[in-house]
């Protein structure tokens, strides 16, 4: 081995981490090479210098300070830890979420205004014509039916909003099915290429059957919203159907 190779190994010579072969080669070389012996001396002296930095720090004040800080941080961290632990446990978290949703639903139903918002204050009112002031539509709703707000208890106005690529097919199907009931198609209005509104009347006491029929057609009937207008109850039934075409 030449000096360069030996000097690569010299820093590890005293650690005993060289292989037996390397250890022997280094030893043999050092016996013959004073320059590499000087190099080893420097490394050993450097190591001795480093030992000057082996001071033992022990400061009770600093130790106490750290303990105090840990106590302080512990108080600050504990609430967060509590939250983290809660999040780690799906069952209690799920329970909390379910309870929250349940309570929100109950509160909503319980405190739903007995004197509901007048129709003219509902934000997204659209009108079929001047006389249809009671109409209210909410954009995601595909079909709605309203009772007659004019005071008649015998018949009610029903509106259907159909949103589909096959408007005529749905309209025809709906009317055919509702033909079993004494309904009258009063008006229809095309909103856009995918939406048509059907206005029809039906006897109030047959509303439930009508709704059942509509459900049987594959529409989803959402629980009604009740509005009060000019002293009369208006029954708003939201009916949705997924567009699968």
């Amino acid at each position, binding site marked *: 081995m030449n000096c360069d190779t030996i000097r690569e190994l010299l*820093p590890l010579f005293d*650690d005993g981490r060289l292989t037996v072969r390397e250890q022997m080669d280094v030893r043999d070389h050092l016996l013959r090479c004073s320059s590499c012996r000087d190099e080893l001396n420097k490394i050993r002296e450097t190591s001795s210098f*480093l030992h*000057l930095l082996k001071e033992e720090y022990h400061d009770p004040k*600093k*130790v106490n300070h750290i303990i105090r800080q840990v106590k302080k941080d512990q108080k600050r961290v504990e609430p967060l830890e509590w939250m983290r632990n809660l999040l780690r446990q799906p069952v209690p978290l799920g329970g909390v979420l379910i309870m929250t949703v349940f309570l929100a639903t109950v509160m909503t139903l319980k405190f739903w205004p007995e004197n509901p918002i007048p129709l003219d204050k509902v934000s997204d009112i659209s009108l079929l014509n001047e006389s249809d002031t009671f109409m209210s539509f909410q954009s995601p709703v595909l079909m709605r039916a309203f009772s007659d707000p004019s005071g008649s208890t015998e018949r009610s106005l029903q509106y259907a909003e159909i949103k589909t690529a096959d408007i005529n097919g749905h309209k025809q199907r709906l009317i055919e099915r509702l033909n079993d009931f004494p309904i009258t198609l009063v008006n229809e209005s095309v909103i856009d290429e995918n939406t048509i509104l059907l206005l029809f009347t039906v006897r109030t006491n047959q509303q439930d059957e009508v709704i059942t029929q509509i459900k049987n057609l594959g529409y989803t009937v959402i629980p009604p919203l009740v509005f009060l207008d000019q002293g009369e109850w208006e029954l708003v039934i939201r009916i949705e159907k997924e567009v699968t075409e």
Partner: protein
Amino acid sequence: LILKSLRKTSSVTPLSQFELLVEQQYGKVFRFSLRLLNNSADAEDATQEAFLRAYKGLTRFKGDSSLATWMYRITYTTCMDMLRTKHRHQDSSWSKEDTDLWESLPDRSLTPEQIALIKEDRNRIKKALSLLSLEFRTVVVLREIEDLSYEDIARILDIPIGTVRSRLARGRRMLSELLYAENKACELTDYPSESGITTKKVGTDEL
């Protein structure tokens, strides 16, 4: 013993047991932080942060390594985080303005002249050490100052033992070159043997 008593604890480590850990490991953690950060104020912050992390993670300590090695590992990652966040890689070199805490340490049975010589040599080695890049400095400090085995160093730094070996070899050589290049004319001083810092010249009979 501390480890056994700590591991018996369930989810929260009692502070009394943690205090014992701090008392036992404080010196090592602070000294290691000081050599990595080259600044006593930063080293104090790092020491505190390391113990805080240790307290939080003590229940997760599996006992795969010694408690000291585990503390070194936490201290190392804490110091690295500090260097990263404060962008101190550039100005982490040792500065004379930093107080040499060694001077304030008690129980020095040395004469004022010896203390002055040691102080001078400490400054030389500290300066040379601070000029080493962090990856070499860390390995040299853990081996030469903290007296750790290659295996423990590999565990602390999460690197292979072969890397520890090569970094140590290069680090020691570079440090030696820095030390002697800076002051070629400086003769190394032989210190009293009781201080444990005597240097020896190697001869052919000592190989």
